[in-house]
């Protein structure tokens, strides 16, 4: 057994002699595909990891527990029982007044312990002013506040009864909460300072936070789940970094699904694309195998030799690809990390690489099964009479079908293994998409070849007729070549189509119609003037929404303790600590919103209960549902509302969001204030806007959503980088497959070419014949591939990814024309080579 194996290995190696270049080409095709999978999965993993880290840095901790009152002794005991490290923080709204005189402004004061943050950093200008703040020399304030109040670092200000100094500008700080309530400038100081100055005395709306750093392997979600009852009983709110990660991760997950799909297609293209070529290579061994069998090599030993070759190409290509993929992953990560803030670290991909190599070997073997079956049933007689076609009997037909089924199963299995979906369901969808694409493509190519051959009969020129007729000749394998090529066209077009759609949706945040600077507390009368100001600075007025503040007076939960309203579980919705909800009214949903349940009501008759729409996250937190009735007070006036719909808000679209949306006609325009938003191209511009606004409209607050925006931008850029990279790789795979296919049929062409020349045909005609044939194959391939891609992208975009269908005409046209051009070129190279070869070579080498 062992001897047979070593012999087969040696034989497989020797047998490949003169064709190693070709086999290497096959391996390269596999490698490009496997490389794509490894690089993309590894890259996806890196980004996922960094999103996870980023989520922690945005929160500053693994978990934050909050209460609307000072932690009681029992709450403290509970917190200590959780373990890990803690850092406490208090947050409250307060007025600040410059010591030199001037208008007071509402700010959000945060008192922190120096252990905070556990992840991420508090960034200040000048650097190091954090230490000054921590040692109690002053406070850190948002740039917005400093510019709005016309202050400078070092100026003294009053907060409540405390007089202190602005020690630095806060540029970035992690922390709990992000929402409408946050649209107030922040001021950071130390917790001991707050207690020392008794700033909390007499305040009702103080939020207490306990930030946790938990041991690295803690399953935070499970911990929260386990202790859910305790949290509820003790009236503690909790938010975890994991939950945020999921929200951000959702975006990335869609993206990764797309990238993975594309890389999977590349891999399949690489592996199955050369399957035809590999089979051709194997079938070219017919006489050799017959001879071996005559000599007395057993069928299984002969099979082993060629199985080794097939697996060798797959595994060799796989290893090559895994190495290249790991390298490309690093390169991609390094290049990308220059453009994004996300701290992307390179993650090892051993498992993916091993899986991909194994799958490549397996699929490469299985996709050769039809050839193996043919060779297995080969009669050694064919050495005596090479022209004898393989015997046809029903047993063999059945086994051929079994082989095709097996090969198909192998491809499905390979795609299932490689598809990095989360569930088997998801993986099956990938597999189905790929196999479906293959089947459809094959049908399209058959139709295309049939149509072309029909045209051939009416052709005038002999060379054209002959060239087109060549498509139908079995040994030319036009069908497999066209399917392989068509598949690469399909993949490139599909990727381009889906990428375009994806970008259309995903990249909006970075595009100029997305708000990233928000102006709040704009009085109705100021709106035109503020709009003019924006216009004069060349900034668009993207949104202008009326804002009203409502207080909840829920009869279901009688206000035994008003300050604990709405409920202690409300931690995501910062307005909780202001005791207020932000509401607006309008007729239509904005682009980032979707109705999750109920019905969007735009009319209010003027009497009776008012139908409103609630943000679904808030509703879930509060335990509200469609039909829940709530009592609000607005400016002291009670109003009854009923929840008519729940809105889910696309996290991608970081825009000012409202808890409640009323139908028009409930409030008076002049009742509340307005919220305006614009898009600043960069942080410099956003600083200018904020300064100008606060100069001209001192009562208006301007908030920069830049940080969160930049994270979304980062993700979008990662997507774009990944997608471009893949498209490039896909072309490499396609070309490798084309060359492999063309090279595999070279022997046939050589024979035909020599024969034609022996018959005395001028080489010009021979060239024309081949050119016509190659261009025809390329054209059939590119049109089949492109139309399959159009259909596929539309379906996938519509039903799987939920993205708009946009046709990148340029790419499509380029690919559709490039492929025939390329086949023509490679045909030219090959025939030039053939015409150069002397007929003697054929007589000598024979096969």
């Amino acid at each position: 057994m062992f001897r047979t194996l070593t012999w087969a290995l040696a034989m497989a190696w020797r047998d490949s002699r003169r064709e190693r270049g070709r086999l290497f080409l096959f391996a390269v095709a596999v490698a490009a595909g496997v490389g794509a999978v490894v690089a993309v999965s590894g890259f996806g993993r890196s980004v996922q990891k960094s999103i996870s880290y980023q989520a922690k840095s945005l929160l500053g901790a693994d978990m934050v527990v909050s209460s609307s009152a000072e932690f009681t002794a029992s709450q403290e005991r509970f917190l200590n029982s959780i373990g890990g490290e803690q850092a406490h923080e208090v947050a409250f709204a307060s007025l600040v007044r410059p010591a030199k005189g001037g208008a007071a402004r509402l700010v959000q004061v945060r008192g922190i312990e120096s252990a905070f943050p556990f992840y991420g950093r508090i960034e200040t200008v000048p650097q190091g002013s954090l230490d000054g703040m921590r040692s109690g020399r002053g406070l850190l304030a948002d740039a917005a506040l400093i510019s709005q109040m016309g202050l400078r670092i070092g100026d003294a200000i009053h907060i409540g009864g405390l007089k202190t100094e602005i020690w630095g500008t806060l540029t970035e700080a992690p922390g709990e909460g992000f929402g409408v309530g946050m649209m107030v400038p922040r001021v950071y100081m130390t917790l001991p300072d707050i207690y020392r100055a008794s700033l909390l005395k007499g305040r009702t709306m103080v939020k207490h936070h306990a930030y946790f750093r938990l041991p690295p392997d803690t399953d935070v979600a499970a911990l929260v789940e386990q202790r859910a009852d305790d949290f509820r009983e003790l009236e503690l709110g909790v938010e975890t970094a994991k939950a945020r990660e999921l929200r951000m991760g959702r975006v990335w997950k869609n993206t990764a699904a797309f990238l993975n799909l594309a890389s999977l297609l590349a891999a399949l293209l690489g592996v199955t694309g050369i399957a035809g070529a590999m089979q051709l290579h194997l079938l070219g061994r017919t006489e050799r195998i017959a001879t071996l069998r005559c000599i007395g090599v057993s069928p299984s030993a002969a099979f082993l030799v060629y199985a080794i070759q097939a697996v060798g190409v797959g595994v060799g290509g796989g290893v090559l690809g895994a190495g290249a993929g790991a390298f490309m992953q690093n390169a991609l990560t390094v290049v990308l990390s220059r453009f994004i803030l996300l701290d992307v670290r390179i993650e090892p991909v051993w498992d993916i690489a091993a899986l991909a190599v194994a799958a490549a070997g397996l699929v490469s073997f299985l996709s050769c099964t039809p050839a193996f079956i043919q060779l297995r049933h080969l009669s050694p007689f064919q050495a005596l009479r090479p022209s004898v076609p393989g015997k046809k009997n029903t047993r063999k037909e059945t086994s051929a079908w079994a082989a095709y089924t097996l090969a198909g199963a192998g491809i499905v299995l390979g795609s299932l293994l490689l598809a990095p979906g989360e569930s088997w369901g998801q993986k099956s969808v990938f597999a189905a998409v790929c196999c479906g694409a293959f089947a459809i493509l094959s049908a399209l190519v058959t139709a295309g070849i049939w149509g072309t051959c029909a045209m051939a009969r009416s052709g005038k020129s002999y060379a054209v007729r002959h060239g087109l007729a060549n498509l139908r000749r079995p040994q030319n394998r036009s069908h497999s070549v066209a399917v392989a090529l068509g598949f690469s066209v399909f993949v490139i077009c599909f990727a381009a189509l889906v990428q375009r759609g994806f970008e259309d949706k995903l990249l909006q945040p970075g595009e100029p119609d997305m708000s990233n600077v928000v102006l709040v507390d704009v009085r109705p009368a100021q709106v035109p003037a503020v709009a003019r100001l924006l216009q004069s600075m060349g900034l668009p007025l993207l949104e202008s929404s009326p804002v009203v503040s409502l207080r909840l007076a829920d009869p279901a939960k009688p206000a035994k303790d008003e300050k604990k309203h709405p409920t202690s579980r409300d931690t995501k919705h910062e307005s909780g600590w202001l005791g207020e909800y932000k509401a607006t009214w309008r007729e239509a949903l904005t682009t980032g919103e979707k109705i999750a349940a109920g019905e969007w009501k735009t009319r209010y008759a003027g009497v009776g209960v008012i139908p409103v729409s609630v943000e679904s996250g808030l509703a879930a937190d509060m335990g509200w549902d469609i039909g829940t009735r709530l009592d609000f007070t607005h400016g002291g006036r009670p109003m009854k509302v009923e929840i008519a719909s729940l809105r889910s808000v696309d996290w991608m679209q970081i825009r000012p969001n409202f808890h409640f949306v009323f139908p028009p006609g409930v409030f008076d325009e002049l009742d509340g204030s307005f919220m305006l938003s614009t898009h600043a191209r960069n942080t410099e511009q956003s600083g200018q806007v904020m300064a100008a606004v606060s100069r001209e409209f001192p009562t208006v607050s301007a908030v920069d959503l830049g940080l969160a925006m930049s994270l979304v931008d980062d993700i979008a850029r990662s997507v774009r980088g990944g997608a471009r990279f893949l498209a490039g790789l896909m072309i490499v795979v396609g070309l490798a497959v084309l060359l492999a296919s063309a090279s595999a049929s070279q022997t046939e062409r050589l024979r035909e070419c020599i024969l034609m020349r022996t018959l005395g045909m001028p080489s010009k005609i021979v060239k024309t014949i081949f050119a016509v044939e190659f261009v025809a194959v390329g054209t059939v391939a590119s049109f089949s591939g492109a139309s399959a891609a159009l259909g596929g992208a539309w379906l996938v975009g519509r039903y799987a990814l939920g993205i708009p269908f946009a046709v990148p005409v340029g790419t499509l046209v380029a690919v559709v024309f490039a492929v025939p051009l390329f086949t023509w070129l490679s045909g030219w190279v090959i025939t030039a080579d053939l015409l150069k070869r002397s007929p003697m070579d054929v007589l000598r080498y024979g096969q």
Partner: protein
Amino acid sequence: MSQGSSTSKESGSKVLLLVADGLCKSFSSGQAQLPVVRDVSFRLAEKTTCAIVGPSGSGKTTLLGLCAGLDTPSSGRAILFGHDLADMSEEERAALRLKNVGFIFQNFQLIPTLTALENVMLPAEVLGTATARKDAMDLLAAVGLVDRAHHYPGELSGGEQQRTSIARAFINRPRILFADEPTGNLDADTSYSVVSLLYQVHKLLGTTLVLVTHNIDLAKAADQLLRMEAGRIVPDLPA
């Protein structure tokens, strides 16, 4: 497959190697059955030579294939070394051929990616002979090709290729050698040298020789002459 036990004896002296008993072979073309070999019977003793002659298309190659177990007969039996080939599996027949049967083809059938030496070594390597390389060199020397040992078949002339294939056929010391028109692709002089080489080796090693040829002169030198016509063996009319 021990040689001694598996051979039957005839008239107490000669060991019978090959018995063809009513061999028939037909190919189906569409509905019709095309008989190619019809009821052929003959016996072949150890250490003898046998020539099969007949016009092209008379079924010689087909008969050879049936006798060597490359194909199965439609009816009748082929018994090689006492084994009914039809009773053996593909693997068993392969093993039998590897050790006991040599082949020479009209178009040489050397493996183009193997050197002459490697081609000759091949059957011995498969068998696991430790001295494969040395044996192959010895045989190449015997056929006068030592200096071409490392050349590929494409670099050898037809006669050289056929001599290489003869060396390959003998490396496992087969008891029987089938040659299907071994000189069909060679000129007269080369043909002569190739066939005399075959007879030489036969004499030296006692290998039973089954030779298909068109050349009646070459055939005359054989112990037994089978003339085929339209799939049947016809009586050999004295010229």
